[in-house]
Each structure stands twice: as structure tokens, then as C-alpha cells.
């Protein structure tokens, strides 16, 4: 029996879909069988980020309404043998066309076949959020070091604490070390102090993330990126390993060290 983890944030644009794609890919790279579920019905883009857009045939709503079997709707990522699958959201429907109970039963079914079911939650706290959270055992709240994102994360944490999921884990995304050093954005400690939940990872801002997303290849596959290392660390923490937080200050020759670490330098 696998574990379902919902990736949520409240605010849009903080990197939920990117996080879902990268954590899922990283877990698959570590040999786990993973299924990613896009619950952002009407605005799906997990398939785009994973580069699987042209292979979508059936979607979440089709499964819920019985037009196809669950197995038919799953899209396999061929880069990872038999380890990474995705269940796409419908693009022509909206969030009210499915109920939390329907999502829950689909996630339950997926948990029988997969080690991890990662659910990509839409922005907001309405029906879409309730759908995404319904089947999850755990939650990761993604925020960026901005006041507005932290405020929304706090709201979402409050809502999650009222469900059976309980206290979620925190992932602080898109940290820009240069701004941090000048004190222009909130630092990790400040965010953690306000939100008061366990930190599962910090991901530095990396311009190549956008390039990779556009190419349909999650950044985590590129070991030269700092964001990739950060996402791999989060995946290892999900598996229960103790991995120290990566230093945010970019030291001279850092990339060389990273390359050396992966036997490329």
C-alpha cells in the first residue's frame, strides 16, 4: 500500500506543479513506483511540464465517470521504465465536475499499485482544493519567501490541520540568495517561525527550471542545477533519510564541486 502526498499552496504561481513533477521524477529516479495526479481540472499543465502532453488520451474525469478504466488513463513516462506514471486532469471540464469522494476512491486505487501517489493541487481553497486533499495521507505546502505567499500558506495549513492529514510539511521554493543576503525577502527562519510546521526542503531559484519546464523535462534530471539537488534532497527526506539543508550562499566554484560530486568534473 503506497502513500498519497498532496502538493498545495493556496497561492498560485509558487511552483506546485514544478514541485510535483520534480519530486515525482526524483522518487522514480530513486527506484520508487510513482503516480502523479493532476487535479487542476480545466487548467491542467502537469502533462506539459513532464513533456507528456501529446500522449494524453483519457483523464481524471473520464475515470471518475466510468468512461475508461483507471489503467487506460495513466500516461507512462518512458524515460523511467515502469516507474513513473501520470493521471492527467480534464481540460474541458471544471472543478465542480468531480467530487472529493470520487478523487478519494481513485487515489485509493492508485495506492494499491504505486509506492507514492503525488497529487498536484490547484491554487485556491475551494472545490479544487477539497478534491485534491480528499485522498491524501500527507501534505507538502509550497511557499515562496514572499509575504503574500506565506499568508496563503498559513491559511492552507490551517485548513489542512482540520482534516485527517494533520500538520503538513513545508517546502520553501524559489529562494534567491542575492535578495536574501540583502534582506529584501523573508529568510527561511522567519517563514518557519510564522508557519510553525516542519521544513522538508528549501529550493533555490534557478532560471533553468523554466527552460526545463518548457522542454518538458523536469529539472531534477539535470544534476548540474542547484534546484535539482534541492528536489532530490526533498525526495530523499520523503523516503525517511536525514539530509542536511543545502547552503544557500553560492560559493565560488560550487558548480565544479557539484560536477565532481556526480563524477563529471
Amino acid at each position, binding site marked *: 500500500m503506497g502513500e498519497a502526498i498532496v502538493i498545495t499552496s493556496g497561492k498560485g504561481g509558487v511552483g506546485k506543479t514544478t514541485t510535483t513533477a520534480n519530486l515525482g521524477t526524483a522518487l522514480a529516479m530513486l527506484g520508487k513506483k510513482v503516480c502523479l495526479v493532476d487535479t487542476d481540472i480545466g487548467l491542467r499543465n502537469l502533462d506539459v511540464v513532464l513533456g507528456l502532453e501529446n500522449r494524453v488520451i483519457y483523464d481524471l474525469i473520464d475515470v471518475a465517470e466510468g468512461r475508461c478504466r483507471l489503467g487506460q488513463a495513466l500516461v507512462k513516462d518512458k524515460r523511467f521504465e515502469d516507474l513513473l506514471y501520470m493521471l492527467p486532469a480534464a481540460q474541458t471540464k471544471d472543478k465542480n465536475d468531480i467530487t472529493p469522494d470520487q478523487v478519494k476512491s481513485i487515489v485509493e486505487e492508485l495506492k494499491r499499485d504505486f509506492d507514492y501517489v503525488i497529487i498536484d493541487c490547484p491554487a485556491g481553497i475551494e472545490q479544487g482544493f477539497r478534491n485534491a486533499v480528499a485522498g491524501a495521507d500527507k501534505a507538502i505546502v509550497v511557499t515562496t519567501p514572499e509575504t503574500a505567499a506565506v*499568508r496563503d500558506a*498559513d*491559511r492552507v495549513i*490551517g485548513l489542512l*490541520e482540520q482534516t485527517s492529514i494533520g500538520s503538513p510539511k513545508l517546502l520553501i521554493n524559489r529562494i534567491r540568495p542575492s535578495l536574501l543576503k540583502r534582506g529584501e525577502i523573508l529568510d527561511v527562519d522567519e517563514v518557519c*517561525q*510564522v*508557519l*510553525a510546521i516542519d521544513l522538508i526542503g528549501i529550493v533555490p531559484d534557478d532560471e533553468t527550471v523554466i527552460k526545463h519546464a518548457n522542454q518538458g523535462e523536469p529539472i531534477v534530471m539535470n544534476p548540474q542545477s542547484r534546484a535539482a539537488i534541492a528536489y532530490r534532497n526533498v525526495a530523499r527526506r520523503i523516503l525517511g533519510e536525514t539530509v542536511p539543508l543545502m547552503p544557500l550562499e553560492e560559493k565560488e566554484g560550487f558548480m565544479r564541486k557539484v560536477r565532481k560530486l556526480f563524477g563529471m568534473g
Partner: protein
Amino acid sequence: MSGKTLVTIKGVKDGLVFVLDDRCDWESLLKELEDKLARHGQQLSGPAIQVRVRLGRRPVDEDGKRKIREIIGRYGNLLVESIESAADGPPAAPRDTLPLYRVSGIVRSGQTVERDGHLLLLGDVNPGGTVRCTGDIYILGALRGIAHAGCEGDTGAIIAASLMMPMQLRIADVISRPPEEWVSEDSGMEFAYLRDGVMEIDRITRLHRFREEATLSKGV
């Protein structure tokens, strides 16, 4: 005496409502009522107007009511319909008999904790969160959201917090926002109280100057 209005006259559909302050002393209340009527008496001439007098929580005996009727009755067209006092009903509980509610946890954005009594919160109030109660609020944690003490009108209520960084503080019906009206000295636990209707912040060690009941008995 502060510039606070003791007598407020409101127009309603079927007449006027006189709202009389329930905390000032009786004599100054009557004096202000007389003054106000004397100033605005001319405007109040014309057809008969129904007047309802609201005394808030001030207990009033028949003598007092007669006095109010007498003052208002000097203006022939004002007919006192009723004199209401909340103290006629069950009296509001005095502050030291209010129950103390202990709540632990974090009050997050969008959440509200409300209690009828004093509130002891073991945890933080985050920005966007609200705590409200009829008595005092004591927060063993950071106050970053909104706290409303004495929400039913107790201007003597206080708000104390280990870390005072609120979005807004409210005591009775006074609302204040930092840092326009005051700045936290960031010197450990602080409390907010009303002095002459204005929000003030001070270190918790000075609470006994404001509240006699808080004085500790000393050893010999």
C-alpha cells in the same frame, strides 16, 4: 476629562435615540445632556419626536430616570418613550469573576478564536488570524494578527503578548494599528491597555500600576 462624547444623539426611523455613556460619572453625564440639548434645542423644535434613551450598562433607579425625563422634557416636543438600561437585565459579570479559557495552538490566517471571558492562548496568532473575547487576552507566544479584548465594551480590558507584533489591536471599540499610534519596544512581554480612550503599550512589569488587583503580596 477627555474629549469623548458622553451623549450621542442618533436619528432613527421613528424618532431619536439618545445613547448615554455608561462609564463616566452621573453628574457629568447629566451636564452634557443638558448642554447638548441647549445647543441643539432650536433644531429640535417642531412636531413631537419620540425619544428612546439608552443607558448601556449603567444601572439607574427611578430617581435617575425621573431626572433624565425632566431634562429632556424641558423641550416640549421631545417625548421620552423609554429609558433602557442593560443593567436592568442580568448585570454584566465584573472582570474578576469572568472565566479564564485556556486554548493552545496556532491561530492561523482566516481563523478566529472567540471566548466569553478571559483568554489564555498558548501559541501564536498569525497575520490574518483573530482572537476575541469579552475580558482580557493573554498570549504566551507571538501576536501577529488581530486581538480584540473587552469586545462587549470593557474599556479596562488588556491584551498581553510575549511578542507584540500585531496587525491590529482592539480594546472595547478602540482600534489601533502599529506603528502609527505606538511602537513596540521589543523588550519582552508587553501589554496593551486604554488610557483615556487611547491605546498604550507598556512592559508587563508595569501592569500593577494600571491594575491594583495584580499586586502581589510580598513576603515578610
